[in-house]
């Protein structure tokens, strides 16, 4: 293994981790507030398409991302409505919305672009120019040769940490997930905080979707999200709802995937399916390792009603 290989592996890891990280950061709010949102996968798929369509027609990546965030917000509002207002079972609601989302995205893509010989493409996010920074040996090519989505994700790690730990909202999210009745008795509107958390999660998922079609690729295909939404959920549990640890966890998952691709490309004789399965196996192992000790938010998965005692 050469140094070049390792540099390209680490750089690639950062790129592949980005969509997972973005979605996972959003799910920190959602899960902390007591909601397991399996619709992330669907939300990401829908926003992935929305970002692409908007960017395709507006020729603006910024508008693409903006639209993705708005669509992510709107789509997760469905989840919020089902789980908070209707108090539906979160697993079922999430599964339903993921199905609906993948169906809708695929359907709308066909409606908008029809059947083409060559798939429509956009000019995707270009790598930012950091001048001399990117020319620093080793560190430069690993850290400073990426497109904007990677830096947005890294920035959001800090933002999410700050919101969760230093703001009134973060404190209220914590209380609502831990002991909603107490929050209610202190005049905090449990459903408002939970709505906000799910919607925030949806906006992050929107960005995550956009990072796939506008940053990672330059087009949209069905099955592009390929379980990244679900991995994000596992990442959050692994990271014990800490944004900083989520960065580490996302890099781990992204790294496994990148390693698989790199080793395949240099022809290492390891069956690529097993390498591809690696992140998923890792998720299970991690889950088994931590579940016994991890304290899920006490009200995780439980709808809140004032009447129930």
């Amino acid at each position: 293994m050469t140094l070049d290989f390792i540099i390209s592996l680490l750089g690639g890891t950062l790129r592949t981790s980005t969509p997972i990280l973005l979605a996972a950061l959003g799910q920190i709010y959602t899960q902390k507030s007591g909601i397991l949102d399996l619709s992330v996968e669907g939300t990401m798929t829908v926003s992935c398409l929305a970002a692409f369509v908007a960017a395709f027609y507006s020729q603006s990546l910024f508008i693409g991302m903006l639209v993705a965030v708005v669509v992510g917000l709107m789509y997760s509002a469905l989840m919020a409505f089902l789980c908070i207002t209707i108090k539906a079972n979160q697993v079922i609601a999430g599964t339903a919305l993921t199905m609906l989302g993948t169906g809708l995205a695929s359907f709308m893509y066909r409606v908008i672009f029809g059947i083409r010989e060559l798939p429509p493409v956009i000019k995707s996010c270009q790598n930012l120019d950091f001048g001399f920074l990117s020319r620093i040996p080793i560190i430069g090519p690993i850290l400073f040769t990426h497109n904007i989505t990677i830096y947005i994700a890294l920035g959001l790690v800090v933002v999410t940490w700050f919101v969760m730990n230093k703001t009134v909202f973060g404190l209220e999210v914590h209380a609502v997930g831990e002991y909603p009745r107490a929050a209610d008795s202190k005049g905090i509107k449990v459903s408002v905080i939970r709505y906000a958390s799910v919607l925030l999660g949806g906006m992050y998922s929107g960005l995550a979707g956009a990072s796939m079609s506008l940053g990672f690729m330059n087009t949209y295909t069905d099955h592009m999200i390929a379980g990244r939404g679900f991995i994000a959920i596992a990442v959050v549990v692994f990271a014990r709802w800490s944004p900083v640890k989520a960065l580490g966890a996302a890099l781990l998952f992204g790294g496994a995937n990148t390693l698989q691709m790199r080793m395949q490309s240099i022809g290492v004789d390891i069956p690529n399916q097993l390498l591809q399965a690696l992140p998923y196996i890792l998720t299970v192992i991690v889950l088994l390792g931590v579940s016994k000790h991890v304290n899920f938010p006490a009200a995780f998965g439980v709808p809140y009603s004032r009447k129930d005692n």
Partner: protein
Amino acid sequence: MGEAILQMKGISKFFGDMAANDNVNFSLEKGTVHGLLGENGAGKTTLMNVLFGLLKPDGGTIFIEGNPVTIHSPAQAMELGIGMVHQHFMLVPTMTVTENVMLGLHLPKFPLLNPSLVKQRINELSQQFALDVDPDALISQLSVGQQQRVEIITALYHETTILILDEPTAVLTPDEAKELFVILRTLKAHGTSVVLISHKLEEIIAIADEVTVLRNGELVGFTKIDKEVTRKEDLSAMMVGREVSFDFKKQKGTSMHEVLSVRELCVNNERGVQALDHMTFTVRRGEILAIAGVDGNGQKELCEVLTGLRQPGSGAITLNGNDITQASPKQINELNVAYVPEDRQKSGLIMDWDISKNLVLKNFRKKPFTKGLFLSKKEMDEAAEQAVEAFKIKTDQVSTLVKNLSGGNQQKVILARELATDPDLLIVSHPTRGLDIGAMEYVRSILIAKRNAGVGVLLVSADLEEIFQTADRILVIYNGRVMGIVNPDVGIQKVGQMMAGITTGEAHA
């Protein structure tokens, strides 16, 4: 005094057909402690939940300092200067004191937390009212009494002028209760008005200036308290509406045959803290042994260990000579032990199932309820019909879902199930909590009847009246230790002291 800071006029609140509050009036004067007295289910908490914006009244008006207000939410109540210390503390256990106080402060036009400022104010309040609260402590590490003071500080922080305390002494030892009363007097001196929800006559007379009495959701009395003049008996008569019968006719227990024997039992709770500390006692055939104690002194763990739901740390438990120290709930069940759990809705019944199925939860695998491979609905229903009749369960049919029964009838379903197998040992935990008086007496009479029939009964209760009505011997538990085992004739005072952990070297009975 003399100026009403709060008036509630004609408050009504219905749950289905049942009136929890029926045209209730309540008036609180500034700088006083006002007792709100009534039995369980009399509507005290409902009235205060209406005031605090947790429940929407079906009728009536609230006046604060003479102005009519409608209170839609706790947030609004707090803006009006109303604070509430709930029976179950509304504190997030995974947060610090400061964080809990910061919750719901509603100050922030600026959405950032400012812990140092809050901490400083907590320290000030803590000193001013002698509350002794550490702002950096994690709630889960505080004692119950300390947590209550955190609740009071939170209320003070919100500049509360009307403080509602819901059964504040229910979870406290007598000493802690005394400390609380000192705090309440300090609050009063600072002009805070206090509503004290309680069903304990002594404490109302000790601390309150006025008292309002509710019964079955209706206002039945209001009086000023004069420590010299006001008699417990008068308040009691108002509250209960009739003489409490203290005399259940009991046959003298004669058997010396031990059903249950517990030796040097030690148990840890979920957090790994010792909950039971070398407990030793026996339950004999045909007696009721009461475990008396303030909630949270190891009673829950004791019941769980005895029924196999929790692993003991060390010690030995024998049942009719069989060692059951490591036995599973199923094995213990098969050794004729019946158990009526404390939380009947969560651990005793499946609320979405009908009466007949709930009656066979423990023996549906056996004949006649299972014939060959399959369950027999016919047999279950027939058995249920009999149980409904025998235990006077009020229902039209055995297919009624238990969630649609009243608390008393739910408890009867559990009793019917547990007693169906002629147990040798009956463990009951707070069997009458939250029941109306009729159901309460019925349940107690069943305990006595079973005792007279030779069953060994272990009664866990915090209700001294219940204990003195029924028990042959009283084991007082404090901090997971046996404070002593006494005969009821030592008197309530004595047992009360022991419950507070005061040792006097009492000989075993």
